[in-house]
C-alpha cells in the first residue's frame, strides 16, 4: 500500500517536472555575412536551426548544424565546410544561456528587449557571449530576433592570407526564431 502511494507520488512529481513551459522551433533561421565591398558576397543561410526557450526561467538554447549553412556559390560552401569551419569534425554550433530578468507574463505583442547571456560553441571552441534580443509574442508564438558580430579568430578559425582581403574580419550574424509550444 505504502509502495503504491510512493509510486503515485513519484509519477505525479515527474509529470509536474515535465510540464515546464517550453517554447521551441526546429526551423529557426541564422544567416551570416562576411562580405567585403567589390568582392564576391560571402553570405550563408541556415533555415533549420533548433531552439528551445524555457519560459519559466528564461533559459534559452539553440543548435545549428553547420552543414546546413547554404551559400550561393557551391565552391565557397565547400571551402567553408572543409577548410574553415571543418564541419565534419565540428558539426554543431551551440548557444546555451539565459535571458536576463525575463518574466514571461511581460512578453506582449509589442517588442521588448532583453540581454541574453551565456556561452557559444563554434568550431569546438567555447566562448562567453552576450547580445541583446528582441522578443514579442503574437498568437502564442514567441518571435525572438537578434543580431551580433563574431570574430572567426576567437574560435580558432584561420583564414589564409590570400583570401583574407575578401573576407571581413567581423562576421555579422542574424538569428530569427518563431517559437511555439
Amino acid at each position, binding site marked *: 500500500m505504502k509502495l503504491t502511494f510512493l509510486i503515485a507520488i513519484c509519477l505525479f512529481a515527474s509529470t509536474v517536472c515535465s510540464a515546464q513551459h517550453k517554447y521551441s522551433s*526546429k526551423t529557426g533561421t541564422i544567416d551570416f555575412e562576411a562580405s567585403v565591398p567589390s568582392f564576391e558576397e560571402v553570405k550563408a543561410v541556415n533555415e*533549420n536551426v533548433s531552439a*528551445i526557450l524555457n519560459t519559466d526561467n528564461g533559459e534559452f*538554447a539553440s543548435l545549428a*548544424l553547420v552543414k546546413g549553412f*547554404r551559400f550561393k556559390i*557551391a*565552391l565557397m560552401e565547400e571551402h567553408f565546410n572543409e577548410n574553415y569551419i571543418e564541419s565534419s569534425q565540428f558539426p554543431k554550433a551551440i548557444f546555451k544561456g539565459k535571458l536576463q530578468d525575463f518574466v514571461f507574463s511581460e512578453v506582449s505583442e509589442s517588442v521588448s528587449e532583453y540581454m541574453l547571456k551565456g556561452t557559444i560553441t563554434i568550431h569546438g571552441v567555447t566562448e562567453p557571449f552576450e547580445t541583446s534580443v528582441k522578443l514579442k509574442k503574437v498568437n502564442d508564438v514567441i518571435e525572438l530576433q537578434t543580431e551580433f558580430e563574431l570574430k572567426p579568430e576567437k574560435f580558432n578559425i584561420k583564414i589564409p592570407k590570400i583570401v583574407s582581403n575578401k573576407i571581413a574580419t567581423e562576421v555579422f550574424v542574424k538569428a530569427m526564431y518563431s517559437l511555439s509550444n
Partner: protein
Amino acid sequence: MKKKIVFLIVMLVLVVGAYTGYKYLYKDHRNITKEVAVVETSAAQLQEQFQNNAAEALLNKTLTVTGIVTQIEGKSITIDDKVHCSFKYEMKGVQVGDEIHLKGRCIGYDDLFEIVKLDQSTLITAE
C-alpha cells in the same frame, strides 16, 4: 602566317583556361534529387545510429528514409519524431499520419530535440 597561328593558339589556350577556371569557381551545387542514395533506412534506424555515435560516415551523404509524418512545420516535416527533413517548398498534400518515403542530405544530429536533420529533401512517390 606563323605569327597568326601562334596568336590563334594562345587565344585558344586563354579562352579554354578562362572557361575551365570559371566552371571551377562557379560550379553548380550538388543536386541531391538526382544523386543516388548511399543508404536506405528508416527514421528509427537512422536516429539509433546517431545516438550510438556510429553515423559520422553519413554526414553530408544522400539518404532515403521512410517513416510516418508526426509534425509539419512550414517547409519541413518530422517523421516518427526522429528525423526532421526540410524541403524547398511547402509540401501540400502531406498530412500528419501519412507514411512517406523521401530523399535528402544528412546534415547531422540535433541534441536539443534528439533528432537527425536532413535538408534538400524531396518526396519519393511510389511507382
